[in-house]
C-alpha cells in the first residue's frame, strides 16, 4: 500500500501526501524508506515556532504564511496541539487561527497534529513528515510546537531556524538566566509588542543573551496586530540559520 502511495506522491498527488503524512505520524514510515524520494527542488527551510501557550504562535504563523505567499513561495505547516494524557483526545485549533491565509490556496498545506505529553512539545515522528513535505517541494516548512515550557528543546534537532516567542511582562530578569528554551533559539521574538513593557522585555533579553559566548540570537519586537516587525522577522528567518 505504501509503495502505491509513494508512486502517486511522486506524481505530485496531494492526497497521497496527506495519507503518507498520517502513516508517518503513526510511525509506519521509517525515514530510511523515504530515501528514494526526490530531494527538495530548492533549498527548503524548516522553521520552528515555539513559546508558551497563548503567546500568539498560530496568529504569527498566519501572518508569515501571507508574507510567504506574497513572495510566491509555498509553505507547509505542521501544527502541534496537546493530546489529553487522560483520554488520548485532542482539540486541534491552530488551523483556525491562521485565518489570514486563504484556505483554498494550493501553495499552503496545513496539518494539525496531536502531541502526547513527554515528547518535548512536538508530535511524535515529525522527522519523516518533514522529509515528505520537503520532497513534495514546499519552499518552507513551519513546525508549530505545543505551548512550550522552559525545558522543551526537542524542536532544535528538527528545524533549521528556531524562533522563540515571548511576550511583555513574562518574568523578571532572573527568569531569563535559567537554562533551556532560550538557549536553543536562533531568533527571539517579543510578540504582542503593541503592549506596554515590550521595550523593557526586549532589553532584558538582549542583556542576558549578550553574556553568552556564542553568537547571540536576534531579538525582534513584533506585533501581529499592527504588522510591526513582521517583515524584519521574515528577513531574519531567511538569513538566519542554526548557530548550534
Amino acid at each position: 500500500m505504501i509503495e502505491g502511495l509513494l508512486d502517486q506522491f511522486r506524481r505530485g498527488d496531494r492526497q497521497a501526501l496527506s495519507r503518507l503524512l498520517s502513516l508517518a505520524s503513526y510511525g509506519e514510515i521509517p525515514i530510511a524508506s523515504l530515501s528514494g524520494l526526490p530531494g527538495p527542488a530548492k533549498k527548503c527551510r524548516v522553521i520552528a515556532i515555539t513559546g508558551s501557550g497563548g503567546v500568539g504562535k498560530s496568529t504569527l504563523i498566519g501572518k508569515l504564511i501571507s508574507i510567504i505567499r506574497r513572495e510566491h513561495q509555498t509553505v507547509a505547516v505542521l501544527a502541534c496541539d496537546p493530546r489529553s494524557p487522560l483520554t488520548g483526545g485532542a482539540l486541534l485549533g491552530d488551523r483556525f487561527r491562521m485565518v489570514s491565509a486563504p484556505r483554498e490556496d494550493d501553495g499552503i498545506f496545513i496539518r494539525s497534529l496531536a502531541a502526547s505529553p513527554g515528547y518535548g512539545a512536538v508530535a511524535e515522528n515529525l522527522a519523516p513528515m518533514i522529509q515528505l513535505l520537503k520532497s513534495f517541494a514546499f519552499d518552507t516548512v513551519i513546525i508549530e510546537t505545543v505551548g512550550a515550557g522552559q525545558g522543551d528543546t526537542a524542536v532544535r534537532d528538527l528545524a533549521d531556524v528556531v524562533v522563540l516567542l515571548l511576550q511583555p511582562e513574562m518574568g523578571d530578569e532572573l527568569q531569563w538566566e535559567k537554562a533551556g528554551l532560550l538557549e536553543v533559539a536562533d531568533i527571539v521574538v517579543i510578540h504582542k509588542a503593541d503592549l506596554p513593557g515590550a521595550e523593557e522585555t526586549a532589553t532584558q533579553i538582549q542583556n542576558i543573551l549578550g553574556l553568552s559566548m556564542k553568537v547571540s540570537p536576534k531579538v525582534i519586537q513584533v506585533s501581529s496586530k499592527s504588522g510591526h516587525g513582521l517583515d524584519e522577522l521574515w528577513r531574519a528567518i531567511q538569513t538566519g540559520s542554526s548557530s548550534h
Partner: protein
Amino acid sequence: MDNRRPIRIVLAKVGLDGHDRGIKVVARALRDAGMEVIYAGLWQTPEAVVRTVADEDAAWLGLSLLSGAHMTLVPRVLELLKKANLNHVGVLVGGIIPEEDIPKLQQMGVARVFGPGTSMAEIVTFLHDWANKSGAVHD
C-alpha cells in the same frame, strides 16, 4: 480500536452563520471521548472545508448549520468531497434542520443528522460504533 489511530474529525461551520456555541460543545465532547478534533471554525466556504478534510486526512466531517442554508450548502460540500475523491469521508450534520429535510440530506449521502437535544453520548456512540464496525475507517 488501535489507540494510535484515534478518530480524526473536522468540525466546521459553512456560510454566514455566527452561532458556534453548539459546535464548540460537540468539539469538547469528542475530544473528551478520545478523538482528534480539528476545529475549522466559523464562516468557511465549502471549498475551504473540503480542502481542510483532504489535508488533515480526516475520516469524518461534522457540519453545523443554524442558518437555514443547509439544503444549499450541504449538497455543495458533498459534491466537492466526491469531486476531490473523498468518498470515504463520513459527513454528519448538526444544528437546526427541519424534520422534512433530514431524509433528503441522508439520501444525498449525509450519514446522520443530529438535531437540538441530542446528547453528546449519542454522537460519541455513533462514531465509535461506526469505527468498530468498519475497523479503521480508512483502510
